């Protein structure tokens, strides 16, 4: 078993705050309340910081480190098809696709939510429709995200949720390690 410090404190705080804030706004907080707006602004602020961190942060936080390539995606799918295992220190190629999807969808939700509050779009239907469609889309994505995280943890023997809590990936011996 080898240990690799991969997720810095910012990434971890970002992740679990986004989880909490998204869950709160989607299922708990009243849609028409002031609080719903504040939570939305908090998500937007977190996303702006994440964007900056993805450009200037440590290695595994950088978008360039985990930008998925077609060859990487194929290799991961081939591993699944043959039952072979390989560990990734950063996000896996398929994981990275989901992460970009989640980050962009959350940004879209924040943006359309903001538009609904502006005078310009007062009474205009599409920002609200789009806002709701994106929330549904994100909910479906999150379910897939969590299922995929559990699936990959079981497949490769690397506990991914724990790494997102402690920042450290524990990789079983014998696994070939990819960046």
């Amino acid at each position, binding site marked *: 078993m080898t240990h690799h410090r991969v997720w810095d404190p910012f990434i971890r705080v970002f992740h679990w705050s986004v989880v909490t804030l998204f869950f709160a706004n989607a299922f708990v907080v009243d849609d028409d309340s002031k609080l719903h707006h504040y939570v939305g602004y908090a998500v937007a602020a977190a996303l702006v910081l994440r964007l900056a961190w993805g450009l200037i942060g440590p290695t595994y936080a950088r978008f360039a480190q985990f930008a998925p390539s077609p060859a990487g995606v194929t290799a991961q799918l081939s591993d699944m098809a043959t039952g*072979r295992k390989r560990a990734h220190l950063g996000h896996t190629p398929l994981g990275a696709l989901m992460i970009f999807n989640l980050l962009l969808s959350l940004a879209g939700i924040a943006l359309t939510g903001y538009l609904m509050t502006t005078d310009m779009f007062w009474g205009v239907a599409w920002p609200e429709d789009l806002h709701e469609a994106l929330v549904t889309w994100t909910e479906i994505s999150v379910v897939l995200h969590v299922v995929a995280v559990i699936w990959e943890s079981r497949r490769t023997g690397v506990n991914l949720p724990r790494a997102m809590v402690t920042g450290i990936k524990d990789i079983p011996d014998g696994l070939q390690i990819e960046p």
Partner: protein
Amino acid sequence: MTRHAPYGLMILIAAQLLCAVFFLGDVVADGLEAGWPHFMDWHFGVEALAALALIAGVGFEIRTLMALLRREAHLKEQLGLAAGAFHEIVTQRFADWGLTPSEQDVALFTLKGLAIPEIATLRGSAEGTVKAHLGGIYRKAGVNSRGAFLALFIEDLMTQPADPVPHHPTPVSPTGT
């Protein structure tokens, strides 16, 4: 035989998966709205059937994609001796025996003469796991040793280059492949 990754198929699967999710969501929403007595009206039935057909299609495509990727992964390590045709026979046998994807991978490495520790390294799994896979392979193939397992394929190997149509116990339809 393609040497490219099947990107087209991957994109098709992703796109159809999206359609399936929306379609299914729509059907479920319609069903909930219609309520129980109307649940069975023909409009809903047709929609539900169409959604199920789409999902079945996606499932089939995923199986095809996985088989393609397996084939690519196996042929990539081919050492030149055995060409694609021999690989067809081997995979047909594996399928007849009902080997799992992992067992197929281990069986192929074994056919190529790799030892258990080497296979374990290549697959990123423990030696014990590879031994367990081998146990499963021998049991399903009805043999009890590596030698006996290899012997099952010797005949194929020897007849293969001279004869493009394999005349082996394994049924191969003349129109197939």
